[in-house]
């Protein structure tokens, strides 16, 4: 018998001993970060970056497969006893020696997870992780000239790139309300001093929001540069229009942190078939929020419609995509993203 077959036999036997629990339920007590466990991480340090942003140093479990600069991870943290999942960009380079990863989080008003991570998280805390994902990444062949166009916490994925890969010619235009709000300000200025980066730092409290047409003056050759942009919806919408207008849309890569809600429908009664719960939902509230409020165990992820971590079978009725207004009707095998879908009349989800 091969060793793999032997191991699987031994595991089966162990399962018969631990039933109705699994052997892993016991192993988790002593070794939650071991290979083969659900992916978790341990917070090792929290470094304050600005008054409302912090970098969290995480030791990932053995199952961590690494990331590509610019990608994000989903983290599940227990805030006031409730497991909440959010997505954050990885800000550490891929070749970090000690195997730790960092995410950098900006506390947003009423943000449960962000405020917890920035202000209350303690070293030693165990958190849930998901493998890195996202296609806001650097290409395998190095472009000659690069522009990073960022604002606020939109700098986080770009910082992951800056720390990871050096380019010959890198320009960054970054906006923040004031200089004290600039996350990674010291790191950026160190890079400038080393001549690895040319930086335009805009303070919107005094200078006003960046007018995209000013790019000609700030970065005259912007249209020739491979550009990665991340920041508020307004900036990204303007950038996409601007790049398209000049016929260079293919050079612009954007990452959004929030979905753009365009359509609000009628709502209706939502049934969670597996748990048998029924609640009334309006046409603006994502089904994910509806389910969570009702105490249903809803899978969730980025909460903005990109990671598909929340996909759930739609058994009956119809839902509306809050970003496009598109209606999806129930059919066998149809999955919907609950974080960006609202009830469009009565509907049933398999949860």
């Amino acid at each position, binding site marked *: 018998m091969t060793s793999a077959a032997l191991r699987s036999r031994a595991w089966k*036997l162990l399962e*018969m*001993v631990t*039933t*109705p*629990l699994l052997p892993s*339920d*016991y192993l988790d*007590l002593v070794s939650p970060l071991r290979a083969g466990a659900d992916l978790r991480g341990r917070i090792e340090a929290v470094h304050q970056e600005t008054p409302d942003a912090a970098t969290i140093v995480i030791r990932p479990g053995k199952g961590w497969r690494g990331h590509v600069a610019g990608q994000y991870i989903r983290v599940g943290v*227990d805030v*006031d*006893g*409730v*497991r*909440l999942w959010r997505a954050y960009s990885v800000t550490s380079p891929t070749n970090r020696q000690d195997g730790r990863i960092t995410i950098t989080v900006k506390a947003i008003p009423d943000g449960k997870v962000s405020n917890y991570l920035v202000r209350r998280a303690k070293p030693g805390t165990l958190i849930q992780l998901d493998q890195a994902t996202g296609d806001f990444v650097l290409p395998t062949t190095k472009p000659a000239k690069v522009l990073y166009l960022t604002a606020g916490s939109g700098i986080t994925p770009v910082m992951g790139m800056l720390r990871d890969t050096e380019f010959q010619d890198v320009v960054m235009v970054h906006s923040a309300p004031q200089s004290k709000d600039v996350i990674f300000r010291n790191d950026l200025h160190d890079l400038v001093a080393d001549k690895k980066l040319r930086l335009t730092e805009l303070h919107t409290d005094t200078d006003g929001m960046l007018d995209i047409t000013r790019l000609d003056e700030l970065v005259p050759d912007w249209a020739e540069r491979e550009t990665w942009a991340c920041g508020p919806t307004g900036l990204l919408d303007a950038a996409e229009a601007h790049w398209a207008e000049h016929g260079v849309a293919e050079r612009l890569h954007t990452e959004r942190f929030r979905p753009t809600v365009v359509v609000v429908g009628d709502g209706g009664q939502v049934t969670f078939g*597996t*748990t048998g719960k029924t609640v009334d939902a309006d046409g603006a509230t994502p089904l994910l929020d509806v389910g*969570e409020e009702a*105490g249903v*165990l*809803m899978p969730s992820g980025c909460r903005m419609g990109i990671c598909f971590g929340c996909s759930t079978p739609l058994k009956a009725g119809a839902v509306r995509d809050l970003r496009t207004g598109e209606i999806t009707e129930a059919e066998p095998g149809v999955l919907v993203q609950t974080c960006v879908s609202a009830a469009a009349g009565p509907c049933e989800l398999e949860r």
Partner: protein
Amino acid sequence: MTAIDPTAHLTEEQIEELGRELDAIRDEVIASRGEKDAAYIRKVISAQRKLELVSRGILLFSIFPPAWIVGTAGLSVAKIMDNMEIGHNILHGQWDWMRDPKIHSSTWDWDHVSPAEQWKHSHNELHHKYTNVIGKDNDLGYGIMRVDEDQKWHPIHLGQPLWNFINACFFEYGIAAYDLELGKNLHKRRRKNPEFRARARAVGRKIRKQVLKDYVIHPLLSGPSFLTTLAATFTANLIRNLWSHSVIMCGHFPEGVQVFERRSIKGETRGQWYLRQMMGSANISGSKAMHFMTGNLSHQIEHHLFPDLPSNRYAEVAVKVRALFEKYELEYVTGPLPKQVFSAWRKVFRLSLPNKKPKVKTPSRDKELVAA
């Protein structure tokens, strides 16, 4: 038979006011659920797993009497913790608010032969909804006993002290049969029902796994201690069964607990539902350790009022609930475990015989029919 309604002094308006006051108690707990509660259940689960692991480890050497005694005691406590404070309460959804898929009513399973799914249906959906309603709540004597004068007497009830004792010894199998509604479903026509057969198969699978673990694998792993480990796991299951049976009998059978007629719950309001739970349940008084080992079912009244509040909060809720009983001049049935167990057993014996001719009884001990 005299019919005295111990809630007759309450007006409809008072009953609704009572309901609002209970809602407020519930809201307060829900608003303050948090980190401490989550830490509590995680600590209990972790302690239970360690205790079970260590006890089973010790039992590998159960051929030595001290190891047998320590291991059996530990395993009994671990099984009781699994079923009572952990399993029963998680399956009630008391911890669903944590959104932890590993501690959730939809994913949990327990060290018990009745599959979690079936137990949740018969317990959460039927017993907790129709508490003490004759003909609706099968927990009233589990379909094998007569526990109220208003239940019809049949010669088979003569044997009910014996049935109850056997049920106590093999309680987990009793529950599995009960969750399957075996009595009803064994009728010829229902036996072939595919839905019933699927559920029966699920029970069969669960029994097989449980039996294999406790009576085959664990003894085999013990090598020379095979027989003593077998005896140990059997004893631990027996102790767990007797204990949980006693605790559960105390919840609804002791003297002073009311039962209700089917027609009395027609059009029942929220306030009236609460009132029925208050009058249909009984508590057990005792120490913190006592409450813990009963899975806080010693706070049966509070549990029936708020089945989905975290069990570690029932003690504080009980103070407020008891004040409401006093305010509305209702009897809060409670007592130490031996007294309540004795009271429940006395009733099992008494009602094995047909009702005596009506005679005048003292009203406080009289617990007959209630029209809500």
